[in-house]
């Protein structure tokens, strides 16, 4: 049995479950849309162009939305007593991490595919279609960091009775650097400030952040998912 086959088996299983129950998709999507409505009414009277603030609004919303999903990704395995079944299998623990990260990434991307156009329709006054590949790159890099760090920390916190509290306490301080880089890179795309200077630095930072936490997970996941 190859690691690739095991990876796709875990990914398919997680996505099949989610498509059947829609537990994460519905709750995160509702949260994202509710945030949009609140932001819209909060800034309704503002005369100024809100394009500059859209990156921040988007990433704060996605970050808290992702937390809802990350909390569920291992809680389901644990609550339904299936984690032992997964750990009994002759699978490298890093493969479990990568498959769980990929499943969280797919769900987050599915929500963003709908939410980003809707958000920008309300708040961004400039057409950014020409910079769409750049925006996709920023979103993908930031999502990978959120899901890699989040999956690692969700695994660590799943054995705690206070896991719903522990995950945000561990996750939010560590994700702040990524949040700042993703926000300023996204804002740069929306405002058309796409010169390679500042934006390039932020993209390099996002790549480095992803690499650090993927390597950290590779080295520690066996312990994180153990007893």
């Amino acid at each position, binding site marked *: 049995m190859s690691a690739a086959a095991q990876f796709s088996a875990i990914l398919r299983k997680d996505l099949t*479950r989610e498509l059947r129950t829609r537990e994460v998709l519905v709750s995160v999507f509702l949260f994202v849309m509710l945030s949009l409505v609140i932001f819209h009414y909060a800034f309704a009277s503002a005369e100024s162009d809100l394009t500059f603030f859209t990156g921040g609004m988007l990433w704060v919303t996605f970050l808290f939305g992702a937390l809802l999903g990350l909390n569920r990704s291992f809680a389901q395995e644990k609550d339904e007593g299936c984690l*032992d079944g997964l750990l*009994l299998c002759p699978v490298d623990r890093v493969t479990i991490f990568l498959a769980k990260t990929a499943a969280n990434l797919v769900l987050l991307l599915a929500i963003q595919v709908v939410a980003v156009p809707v958000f920008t329709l309300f708040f961004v006054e400039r057409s950014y279609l020409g910079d769409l590949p750049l925006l996709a790159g920023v979103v993908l890099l930031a999502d990978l960091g959120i899901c890699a760090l989040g999956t690692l920390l969700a695994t660590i916190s799943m054995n705690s009775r206070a896991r719903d509290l522990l995950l945000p306490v561990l996750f939010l301080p560590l994700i702040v650097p990524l949040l700042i880089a993703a926000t300023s890179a996204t804002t740069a795309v929306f405002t058309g400030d796409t010169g390679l200077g500042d934006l390039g630095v932020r993209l390099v930072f996002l790549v480095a952040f992803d690499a650090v936490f993927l390597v950290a997970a590779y080295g520690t996941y066996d312990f994180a998912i153990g007893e």
Partner: protein
Amino acid sequence: MADPHPGHGRPEIEVEVEGLRKTFGRREVLRGVSFALERGGFLAVFGPNGAGKTTILRVLATLLSPGSGSVCVAGHDVREDPMPVRRAVGLISHSPLLYPDLTAYENLRFYADMYGVEDREARIDELLDRLELSHRRYDVVRAFSRGMRQRLAIARAVLHRPRVLLLDEPHEGLDPRAVDILDGLLAEIRADHTFVMVTHHIGKGLELASRVMIVDAGRVAYEHAAGVDADAFSAVYHEHVQEGSAQ
């Protein structure tokens, strides 16, 4: 010249536990458990609740690491070389280890892919047929009764043809028909498998086992070849458990 068959002339040991200790926090659950089981053997483990029986099974299954001591399953150390142990072991536990929102088929396909079962579809068909679950193949497990889940759990545990089967109270919660199916299946695969079964059913344990062991307060209180009369064993059990239940 070295003997090409070093185990020749004596039974090959499939499960070997030596001085196993395990602590949770400050509580020592296993206090130097040792036993060995030859290939094809069937060990029934008895003992009161909290004696450490399930912990032994979880260590054998690599779900818990041994605190100290050595544990070898199918010729591999569970701490140093867990992957071949996981390939060699199947576990039937209290919990069915099935995903309630997936169908019976999806659950078995998932585990078959994880174990790399080559004849996946034929094996799933065979087991669903054998466990009389073919008609519920595409139903989600959430809709199954407790007995049906347990039958599907048996299919999951033997799907990859494990050499060593670990059974934790396998008859618990089964209706008489399911008990017959389980016993029939165990009898069928008895010859070429090694079994370690934790149970409270003295009669059932003595009926199936080739060796019996009583664990109490984290220690092996009694070990003997099977073939003991149920009443006599019951007396031995109460004698050892009363003596050793100081935990």
